[in-house]
């Protein structure tokens, strides 16, 4: 793709052409030549959308809830972008992306831009592709962007962390309270939604969640722990550590909430929307939105650099006859992995050092 075509595509996207937006997302997904330039050009037009991440186990009702949320936003006159990530086969790379079936409330409404994406298996690649796709939707002018993923594994958590507000969906009867102790579930949520709240055991799940959240917030309440201190939350770096006084601390902290919904009938969706708005307002008031964005960009830069550096090293490896040949030499005890790594990286390090001087 040449530069002129890229410019045209970017201009069409900014002018609001759906086809151009769809094509840009494809390019980002395919890692097609020129996609980097496109995303760089879009960046200055981003930063206006509110990004909501929705995660939860398969069958919890994410797609149905997202559909209802999108419909409510549309009723308020806001435009919505949805990115639904589904797993792909580790063997063939193929995938059936079925989230679209649930998008029944927004049929024929082009102002809800729904895009299915598959987890194409490359490590870290998915979160980069997703955050680039979010940028495309943002630049296109969507007010709300909802990212929906199956919540299992680092990849998904990474994606969800790119959102301003994270909603974790839990279905009733999904295990006892120990399940909720599992790392990564309680920590990532700003809001917890027990969906299918008309099912048996829903109130029990709500109670379990609330108890666990309470423990998460203050695990040592009323206990003599003999000096044990809760580790700082990675996303709240520097807030608690500054030794802010209690009052300030209270304002800075968002207390995760547990809500109940029945996505199918739309019950509880309005309350969810209100809470989402409250969280959004809180983000703005406390300046957390900006802090989060800064953390996000830092992570993005790191990720890009890591990937690019890995590519540079891959090229160097190929030039030196490939990693296989080196492995063979290691196997024959001619050399060892550390020496090989030093050999490969040495010239690169020298180069960087020279440049610095």
């Amino acid at each position, binding site marked *: 793709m040449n530069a002129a075509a890229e410019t045209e595509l970017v201009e069409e996207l900014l002018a609001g*052409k*759906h*086809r151009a937006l*769809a*094509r840009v*997302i*494809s390019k980002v*997904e*395919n*890692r*097609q*030549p020129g996609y*980097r330039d496109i995303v760089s050009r879009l960046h200055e037009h981003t930063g206006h959308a509110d990004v909501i991440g929705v995660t939860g186990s398969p069958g919890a009702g994410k797609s149905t809830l997202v559909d209802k949320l999108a419909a409510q936003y549309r009723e308020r006159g806001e435009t919505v972008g949805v990115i639904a990530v589904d797993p*792909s*086969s580790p063997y*063939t*790379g*193929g*995938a*059936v*992306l*079925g989230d*679209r*079936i649930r998008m029944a409330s927004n*049929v*024929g409404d*082009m102002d809800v*831009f*729904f*895009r*299915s994406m*598959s987890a*194409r298996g*490359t490590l*870290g*690649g998915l979160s*980069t592709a997703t955050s680039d796709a979010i940028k495309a939707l943002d630049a296109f002018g969507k007010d709300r962007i909802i990212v929906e993923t199956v919540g299992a594994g680092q990849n998904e958590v990474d994606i969800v962390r790119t959102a301003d507000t994270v909603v974790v969906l839990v279905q009733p009867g999904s295990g006892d309270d120990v399940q909720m102790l599992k790392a990564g579930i309680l920590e990532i949520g700003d809001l917890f939604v027990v969906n299918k709240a008309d099912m048996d055991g829903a109130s029990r799940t709500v109670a379990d969640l609330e108890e666990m959240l309470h423990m998460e917030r203050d695990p040592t309440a009323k206990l003599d722990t003999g000096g044990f201190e809760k580790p700082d939350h990675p996303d709240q770096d520097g807030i608690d550590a500054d030794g802010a006084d209690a009052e300030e601390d209270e304002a800075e902290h968002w207390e995760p909430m547990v809500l109940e919904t029945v996505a199918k009938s739309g019950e509880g969706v309005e309350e969810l929307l209100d809470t989402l708005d409250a969280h959004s307002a809180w983000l703005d008031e406390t300046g957390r939105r900006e802090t989060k964005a800064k953390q996000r960009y830092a992570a993005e830069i790191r*990720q*890009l650099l890591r*990937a*690019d550096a*890995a*590519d540079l090293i*891959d090229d160097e490896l190929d030039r030196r006859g490939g990693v296989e040949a080196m492995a063979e030499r290691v196997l024959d005890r001619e050399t060892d992995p550390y020496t090989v790594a030093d050999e490969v990286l040495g010239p690169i390090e020298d180069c960087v050092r020279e440049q610095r001087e």
Partner: protein
Amino acid sequence: MSADQEQRTIRCLVAKVGLDGHDRGAHVIARAFRDAGFEVIYSGLHRAPEEIVQAAVQEDVDVLGISILSGAHNTLVPKVIEGLKEYDAFDDTLVLVGGIIPDEDKEELLELGVAEVFGPGTPMEETVEFVEANAPER
């Protein structure tokens, strides 16, 4: 480059249009496409032509496979194609029709811009190979 390696995957929309509740064929095809390494988006049953157009445009699919067994293809397929043209999406989307299509209608559909019509008994490999050979270059 690891993050920048081009990862082109053929994207397909398998669509059921109109009042036709027979989706076994669509499911079988969706599965065959998945196993061939394609990304398949299934529309679900009873979709209106506008919905199919919306999905095809937003998902930026390479291939749109419309399954019709109700006999309404002469009404529904032109509507879908019109819609695709409206969004500038017709030229680089491979449109296929599967189902029960009489021979005389087949000619008409092909003239409209449908790339191929697959009737009952078409071997799965044939369809997959056709898609692989004819998926539009972008």
